[in-house]
């Protein structure tokens, strides 16, 4: 292949340019299409990130450790407000006075570390 001849052929090749108006119409349509595609992509990406973050936050709340659930349900005696404390004491007193087996009730209170009540009622002997 003669390189220079090839170059010459290419340089001198004839062509007719496309019509300006139709070229512009296609150009602006394509431009809008690309903008729309970019916006959709960014929206999809943002939504994906939000779902991922939300999912991570949610799954981090899940646990198989029962003591965590249990500890959420039982507020330690030391941080109870006065009203709640009073209610708990009344409840414990009711259990002690109405139980069929006082020793079983006292064992239960012991298990939940309700020492104050045990001491107060002297093991139910008073």
């Amino acid at each position: 292949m003669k390189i220079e001849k090839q170059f010459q052929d290419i340089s001198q090749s004839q062509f007719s340019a496309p019509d300006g108006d139709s070229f512009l119409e296609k150009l602006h349509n394509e431009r809008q299409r690309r903008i729309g595609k970019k916006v959709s992509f960014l929206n999809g990406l943002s939504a994906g990130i939000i779902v991922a973050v939300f999912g991570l936050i949610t799954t981090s709340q899940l646990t198989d450790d029962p003591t965590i659930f249990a500890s959420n349900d039982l507020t330690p005696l030391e941080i109870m407000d006065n009203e709640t404390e009073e209610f708990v004491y009344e409840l414990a007193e009711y259990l002690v006075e109405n139980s069929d087996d006082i020793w079983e009730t006292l064992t239960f209170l012991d298990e939940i570390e309700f020492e104050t009540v045990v001491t107060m009622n002297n093991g139910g002997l008073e």
Partner: protein
Amino acid sequence: MKTDHELIKEFQEGRETAFNELVKRHLPNTYGFFIKFTADEVEAEDLAQDVFIKMYKALKKFRFESEFKTYLFRANVNMSNTYLRRTKWRNLLHLDQAPEPGYVDTNLEDEWRRKELWDAVSKLPSRQRMVVTMRIAQEMPYKEISKIMRISENSAKVNYHHAVKTLKDLFKN
């Protein structure tokens, strides 16, 4: 008739019709550049479209430090480099599409030779590739090539000379 810079200023102020006028003015040259490159009307039109879409965004920040024609031509050359890189891989995978020896369809053979030539051009070092592209596709004088590439005129000539030598060696082998 308004100059390119006046049209760009108007476009920057929000007049889209100024951009359209600019495109119509430079479309023949840009399309002509790419048709010599690709020998395919559809590809040439797509490449020209890509360049002007990029221009639509880039002209909003145009600083009027060079002629628009120079700026546009640099964009054409960059686009042609992208095209050559893309077709290099395409050609690697489509080697069986070369015409059968002995089969003579002049148009197909010419097209294939042109593709073979551009494929070879794509293998040149980037500076030589750019000089050759501008000489072939635009018959650009070395003075203008040197302005666009920001090299001396002699450097442009040397690059062209080396490029042609490399291409001849490639085809000999």
